[in-house]
């Protein structure tokens, strides 16, 4: 018997629990060789209202079991996204959420309003957690009032599902999680990258031109599992776990920790078929353990 892996997350019915994480799947047209039958959904690369050039190179560097990136949300802007990508998404058999960004709450709202109703756009993931921009990003994500204001600004402009991507760079993620839940979020994505730094011992300066970057990959997995778990305990809306998932077992850790679904990011760079491998591994685990659907998977979510 093939287990039922479908889930419902924040207003979206998904055929499985594994989505592609923002910034690691482009606009969905770039990743080669992925068996897309397993892809439950994708979150597009972060977009602003206007085109952005991104940061100067070097933009990435590998670190032990991980990588630092400072891409700086390079992107073509909302109009080009609507023109060039949304028509393609409309034909796909999985939903596409757009990762939206802004330098002010009203810019986030404006981006959502422009995209609302565009065929191919199934929902939004509000990025209040990018560490690689001078304005906005993470700075909204570590203040509960600013986080709620951004969420509200988007909520007011759309009826589509609104997910909020949380930053790990906070002392209590539960406070932020509750604030955005109160402001109308349908789901949370936890977490974005951790801020890190690496020094070049030849040039005596940071390896990244932005000085700091966002750490992703297996190096952050236990930290991300913990934060996703804390967020899941704090709210009633679903939490989507993100951070360092390379294999099915990693994804299952997030699910057992209380997440409804997961996103796979950096792993796709290493293994273009990572999402399908994770999906298939979860199915295999469920069959082996005799679970007919993900509802039957035991969760560790003590309420205190």
């Amino acid at each position: 018997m093939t287990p039922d892996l479908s889930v419902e997350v924040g207003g979206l019915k998904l055929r499985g629990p594994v989505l592609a994480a923002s910034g690691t799947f482009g606009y969905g047209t770039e990743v080669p060789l992925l068996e897309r039958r397993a892809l439950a959904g994708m979150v597009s690369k972060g977009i602003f209202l206007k085109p952005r050039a991104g940061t100067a190179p070097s933009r990435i560097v590998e670190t032990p079991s991980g990588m630092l990136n400072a891409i700086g949300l390079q992107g073509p802007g909302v109009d080009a996204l609507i023109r060039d990508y949304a028509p393609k998404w409309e034909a796909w058999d999985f939903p596409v959420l757009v990762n939206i960004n802004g330098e002010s709450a009203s810019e986030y709202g404006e981006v959502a309003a422009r995209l609302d109703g565009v065929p191919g756009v199934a929902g939004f993931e509000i990025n209040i957690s990018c560490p690689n921009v001078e304005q906005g990003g993470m700075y909204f994500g570590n203040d509960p009032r600013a986080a709620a204001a951004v969420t509200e600004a988007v909520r007011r402009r759309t009826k589509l599902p609104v997910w909020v991507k949380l930053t790990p760079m906070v002392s209590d993620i539960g406070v932020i999680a509750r604030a955005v839940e109160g402001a109308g979020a349908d789901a949370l994505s936890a977490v974005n990258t951790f801020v890190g730094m690496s020094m070049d011992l030849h040039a005596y300066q940071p390896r990244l031109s932005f000085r700091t970057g966002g750490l992703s990959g297996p190096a952050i997995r236990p930290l991300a599992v913990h934060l996703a778990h804390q967020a899941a305990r704090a709210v009633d809306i679903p939490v989507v776990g993100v951070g360092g998932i390379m294999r099915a077992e990693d994804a299952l850790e997030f699910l057992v920790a209380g997440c409804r679904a997961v996103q796979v990011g950096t792993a796709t760079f290493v293994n273009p078929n990572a999402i399908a491998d994770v999906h298939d591994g979860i199915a295999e685990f469920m069959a082996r353990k005799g679970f007919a659907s993900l509802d039957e998977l035991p969760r560790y979510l003590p309420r205190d």
Partner: protein
Amino acid sequence: MFLTDAPLVERRQVARDMWVLGFAAPDIAASVKAGQFVNIGMRPGPLLRRPFSVYRAGDDRIEVLLKAVGVGTAQMLAMREGDVASCLGPLGRGFDLTLSAKTVSLVSGGLGVAPMPLAARDARAAGLQVTWVHGARTADELCSETEGDEVILATDDGSAGFAGTVVAAAPDADLVLACGPNRMLAAAAQRWPQAQVAVETYMGCGTGVCLGCAVPLTRGGYDRACTEGPVYVASDVDWPALPSHLSYAVSA
């Protein structure tokens, strides 16, 4: 584009600290063009794959050139025949040899020799007269496998061939293809704005997804070394904004 677990079938030394590794990868070997690369991953090994220009291809195998600069390359050099590495490729846009020309200069500095044997092969197939100018810091760092209608060697210390840079040593030609440290390519761009140069950047994915391999352009903005590159018309690159030195933290 193909993803394959490729067994090691060949290893030979071509200069001090410089090695050629051959992998059985028939699909990639049959389709790769000069200047394209493969992204090679090791399990266990560093997290990210590493880009390597394809050095030679044919007989169901591809060859890459490397130097032990970090744990990743050291691990590759420690492979034994039959051990497998994961190869993703061919990737990127290679040299354009369809332009009308009679002569070509291949200009390579150090490890920049990597795409040149394939470039020489494709240039000869296109009926071009090939001059290969190859340089290194010192004689024993020169790759021993240069070939062509004419071969010119150069060393910084004068221990072999022309004493000075490859850019100074090279003759003009209808086409100039160059690869080497970004500093050398910037010098090539001064002399031959129309040269086709293969740049080096850090890469995350190698397939156009992560935007980590940004190359600054003279017309403004960035594009992706792994997709629009790694070969550029020299005058299109904003050389001062392209890092001239890459230092791999955990490996190279």
